[in-house]
């Protein structure tokens, strides 16, 4: 019944009628550059098979020719790369899931120069040299290349092996597609829209539940899509399917998602779904996201995920044309494709007989059924005999023939005779394993069921129902799946406290397993044939590899998995895991149930990074924070740097200036005239309440309770272990109101730290913390002319030196804008920090800068700020301190007169009092032109022996324009006892001699602050 009129390769294996493809809609596509035709409704796999193409890939390790094995997501071999344009290339797609459309451009992978002739196939000839654990055993030396990341493995072997043993290539350039994401909640999530899933969704929807039904295929229906003769409740399955879908769609409370894979189950019933929106469309749906990530929180989940057929393990079982029997049936009934014209069915199940009879009825010549078991069920055998199929029971397979496609199979018959049968396809029926990936991810326990030769769900799991083949009903009639689905839907309703209209007894789905369809364990392979008997097709793991692992002492299946890589490929062992366990069980002589199974991990099938990232790309990946002054700084040509999430102006170069020149100019301007600086990123917390002073006194090392209104204090924050975690200025605006600043990157951390103590340790204190970082723009005006610049611009602010003294603050107006004016300095010069409501920040900064420029001042950025504070020995928390330094180590006050504050008790622990703790000091290089490298190690000796303990490291290092030489801050063990002594900084270019000095390089007495 094969159409014969399409010319060579032209759908020669397409049936004249039947299937769900649309023969009136031809679709043209290319595979490896060659043009083919399929029909709307085809997958790439079905269309290639219709054209007689079985060879679709080369295997991972041995580069063996490989063909299509399955018809669904479990496909291990037929991985292809789909190219849409040079940036939109997707590797490792399963041809069984790629829907064809006009213009589809797919290519095979892991072959050079071509699929039919591949140099890498040399590996296959050498396969005895590549046993399990080959890489671990072989690529160890030579030692002279070093070890670990710099060793021979990383430098020589790995790059070569990665080129040879590979899958598809990931595109190098950015993905130009867009992706979307959505969060959703539902009462019942039904996974799988086969007969069981449809029935479950219907039952739940009829009971009033909000239902989401997701299926990975293009259409809902599951097994019904390839089952033309099946009847449900007296009507043809196709009609029932249409009716069920229409009924579901009529509920406003039901969402049906096709082309949607539920790839992961996460705690508290969160499910990850990926919906493929445009890959199947010829024009890729311009403007539409390519995929959508759904994060669904479901109160109850029904797993109607079906079952996956297992291959059989025999020599040559990986040749193109050797495939799953159930897949052959699917290709026939769903796609109208015959996978061959002469087939041998190798089986350990009765369903193999049924499929053989079915195929025979549709014109395939079944050369034989080779049953690896002793005997089959009577009904199955009778059906096959009626179709005139020769049956051989109790056989073993000796091998298959053919190069790029199977052409024969050799059998050892029960009576000892050997037989060679010509065949263009060999169909394997090894039983089916319930698809319990999600059940296992939900931490449901799986137990080995010897009758089914499969893992089944053991105990009921809260909030989870199983339905259909997933329960173990793997060979049962569709009516059973339908009934079990209805039961699951009703069970879901009951669990949610809703009543269903169904009448099926609760729990039926978990209990009413029919007698197993006499599946027998995988027939053992003769020892000398194990090397050619593949278990994991995608990772090229053979029966021999598993035996070797067991012989070498591996016992845990998790270890065997990692040693042999079985089950570790992109298919995660969907077709191989049970066969691997069975084989290991045989080698070790232990029951499969004792060996257990490896962990099922999300995702069920690979998910694109695009879908997982969704909208969080580009500027939305890690959004930056900009100050209100940012646009003005950009207009001034500032160069920016990232500081935590902020973009800050680093320096303001004049035309032709280098960074070094610009920073030197900005520093000198602050020292001699005036500089204007955007300090808006400083964290700001307002602390208000009758106990605000008490609270801050307990939080900071410094005395806050005694701080007068109108005054500020530099304050150090410790964690309870006594280490400096932040610093800032605490200003008392009134008896009950404080304005507290934090470091730029510490703002959120400090607020959380304070909230923690306020809420959980000192809940009796009445005060409230409010972040006001973004409410205030801050302009620092620093330098000897700061007062002169500011004076004409303020109202209600007395700037007189003896009124607004250093560390005093007041409120008034600046440029007519309400302002908090703090006289503080992070430069060592006379300075003010003007806080204005954020919306005025840009105007105030610009006006103050103009005023400053009229007296020779300038804008300065963070780099100059760093240099200026280092000249004064002021620390930056996180640069000069690293979370292991106490205030004593840093030469800061330790709050000795206070009874308690967070961290105080720790400061008197014995380890905190030893004299060789790291201490902050200044360093001067002998040659003032040399600027040390931050992070450089410091030693006592000029030529320390290898392995000598470094006594400290450089934390900050700059060229100081005002001092005309380099300066550095460092922490050195017991450093303050070594003032004036010489230490060494060994660098690749030579040892640098440095002298230990006080960290206050400039104006050590601080007279300029009080100008």
């Amino acid at each position: 019944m094969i159409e014969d009129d399409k010319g060579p390769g032209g759908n020669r294996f397409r049936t004249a009628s039947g299937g769900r493809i649309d023969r009136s809609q031809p679709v043209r596509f290319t595979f490896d550059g060659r043009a083919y035709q399929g029909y709307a409704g085809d997958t790439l796999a079905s269309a290639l098979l219709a054209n007689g193409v079985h060879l679709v890939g080369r295997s991972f390790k041995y580069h063996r020719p490989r063909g299509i094995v399955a018809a669904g997501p479990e496909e291990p071999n037929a991985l292809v790369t789909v190219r849409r344009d040079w940036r939109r290339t997707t590797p490792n797609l399963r041809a069984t899931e790629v829907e064809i459309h006009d213009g589809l451009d797919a290519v095979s992978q892991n072959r050079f120069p071509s699929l039919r002739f591949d140099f890498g196939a040399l590996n296959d000839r050498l396969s005895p040299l590549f046993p399990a654990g080959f890489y671990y055993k072989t690529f160890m030396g030579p030692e002279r290349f070093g070890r670990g990341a710099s060793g021979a493995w990383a430098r020589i072997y790995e790059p070569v092996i990665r080129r040879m043993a590979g899958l598809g290539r990931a595109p190098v350039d950015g993905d130009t597609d867009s992706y979307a994401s959505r969060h959703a909640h539902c009462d019942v999530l039904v996974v799988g829209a086969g007969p069981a899933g449809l029935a479950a969704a219907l039952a739940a929807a009829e009971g009033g539940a909000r239902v989401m039904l997701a299926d990975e295929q293009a259409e809902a229906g599951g097994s019904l899509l390839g089952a033309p003769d099946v009847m449900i409740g007296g009507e043809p399955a196709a009609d029932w399917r249409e009716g069920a879908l229409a009924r579901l769609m009529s509920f406003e409370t039901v969402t049906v998602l096709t082309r949607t894979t539920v790839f992961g189950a996460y705690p508290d019933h969160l499910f990850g779904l990926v919906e493929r929106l445009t890959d199947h469309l010829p024009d890729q749906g311009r403007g539409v996201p390519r995929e959508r990530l759904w994060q669904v929180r479901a109160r109850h989940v029904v797993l109607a995920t079906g079952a996956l057929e297992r291959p059989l393990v025999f020599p040559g079982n990986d040749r193109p044309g050797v495939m799953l029997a159930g897949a052959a049936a699917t290709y026939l009934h769903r796609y109208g494709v015959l996978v061959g014209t002469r087939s041998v069915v190798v089986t350990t199940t009765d369903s193999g007989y049924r499929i053989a009879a079915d195929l025979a009825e549709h014109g395939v010549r079944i050369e034989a059924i080779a049953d690896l078991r002793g005997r089959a069920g009577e009904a199955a055998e009778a059906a096959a005999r009626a179709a005139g199929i020769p049956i051989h029971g109790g056989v073993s397979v000796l091998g298959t023939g053919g190069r790029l496609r199977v052409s024969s199979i050799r059998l050892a018959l029960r009576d000892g005779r050997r037989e060679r049968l010509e065949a263009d396809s060999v169909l394997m029926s090894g039983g089916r394993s319930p698809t319990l990936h999600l059940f296992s991810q939900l931490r449901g326990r799986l137990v080995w069921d010897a009758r089914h030769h499969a893992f089944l769900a053991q105990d009921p799991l809260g909030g989870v129902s199983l339905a259909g083949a997933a329960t173990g009903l793997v060979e049962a009639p569709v009516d059973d799946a339908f009934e079990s689905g209805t039961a699951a839907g009703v069970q879901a309703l009951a669990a949610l406290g809703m009543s269903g209209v169904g009448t099926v007894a609760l729990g039926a789905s978990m209990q009413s397993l029919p007698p197993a369809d006499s599946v027998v364990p995988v027939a053992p392979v003769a020892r000398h044939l194990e090397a050619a008997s593949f278990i994991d097709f995608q990772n090229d793991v053979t029966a021999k590899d598993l035996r070797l692992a067991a012989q070498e002492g591996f016992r845990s299946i998790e270890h065997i998995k990692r040693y042999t890589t079985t089950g570790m490929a992109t298919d995660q062992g969907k077709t191989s895991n049970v066969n691997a366990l069975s084989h290991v069980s045989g080698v070790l002589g232990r029951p499969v149930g004792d060996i257990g199974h490896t962990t099922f991990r999300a995702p069920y099938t690979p998910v694109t990074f695009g879908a997982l990232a969704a909208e969080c790309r580009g500027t939305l990946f890690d959004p930056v924070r900009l100050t209100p002054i940012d646009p003005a700084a950009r207009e001034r040509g500032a160069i920016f740097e990232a500081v935590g999430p902020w973009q800050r102006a680093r320096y303001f170069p004049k035309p032709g200036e280098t960074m070094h020149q610009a920073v030197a100019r900005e520093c000198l301007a602050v020292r001699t005239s005036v500089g204007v600086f955007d300090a808006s990123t400083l964290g700001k917390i307002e602390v208000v309440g009758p106990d605000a002073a008490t609270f801050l006194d307990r939080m900071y090392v410094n005395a806050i309770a005694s701080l007068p209104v109108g005054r500020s204090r530099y304050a150090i924050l410790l964690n309870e272990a006594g280490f400096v975690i932040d610093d800032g200025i605490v200003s008392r605006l009134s008896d009950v109101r404080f304005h507290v600043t934090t470091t730029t990157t510490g703002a959120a951390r400090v607020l959380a730290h304070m909230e923690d103590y306020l809420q959980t340790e000192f809940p009796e204190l009445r005060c409230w913390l409010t972040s006001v970082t973004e409410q205030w723009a801050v302009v620092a005006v620093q330098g000897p002319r700061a007062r002169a610049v500011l004076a004409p611009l303020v109202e209600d602010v007395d700037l007189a030196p003896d009124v607004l003294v250093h560390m005093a603050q007041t409120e008034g107006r600046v440029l007519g804008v309400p302002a908090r004016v703090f006289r503080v300095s992070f430069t060592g010069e006379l300075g003010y920090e003007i806080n204005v409501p954020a919306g005025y920040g840009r105007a105030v900064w610009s006006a103050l800068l103009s005023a400053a420029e009229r007296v020779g001042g300038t804008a300065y950025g963070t780099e100059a700020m760093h240099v200026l504070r280092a000249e004064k020995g002021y620390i930056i928390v996180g640069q000069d301190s690293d979370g292991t330094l106490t205030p004593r180590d840093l030469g800061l006050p330790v709050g000795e007169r206070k009874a308690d504050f967070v961290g105080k008790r720790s400061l008197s622990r014995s380890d905190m009092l030893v004299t060789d703790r790291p201490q902050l000091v200044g360093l001067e290089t002998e040659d003032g032109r040399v600027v040390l490298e931050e992070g450089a190690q410091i030693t006592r000796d000029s030529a320390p022996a290898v392995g000598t303990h470094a006594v400290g490291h450089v934390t900050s290092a700059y060229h100081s324009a005002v001092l005309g030489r380099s300066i550095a801050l460092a922490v050195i063990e017991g450093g303050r006892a070594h003032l004036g002594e010489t230490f060494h900084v060994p660098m690749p270019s030579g040892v640098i001699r440095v002298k230990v000095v006080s960290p206050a390089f400039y104006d050590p007495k601080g007279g300029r602050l009080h100008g």
Partner: protein
Amino acid sequence: MLQIRCPWCGEDRPEIEFRYAGEAHVVRARLPADESDAAWAEYLYLRTNPKGWHAERWHHVHGCGRFLNAIRHTVTDRIAVTYKPGEPRPTIDDQQGPTP
């Protein structure tokens, strides 16, 4: 992603709204100065780290901003109950928890 019931908001909210904040019921001494070095070191650094039910603190940092306590099973991740700081630790019937 866990769902955590915030006892202040009275809502089940996703884990990403919260930040973990260490073991609960580790009380800071009223007068730390009176603590011995050993007792203070224990307060600072030693935690119970049980396999099973664990009383721990979470901060609803992207929600109401309040701290809360939760009893979570460290094997199954199930949170049996959440409650406000200062309230006594509830006892959990082990039978009610899912077995690991």
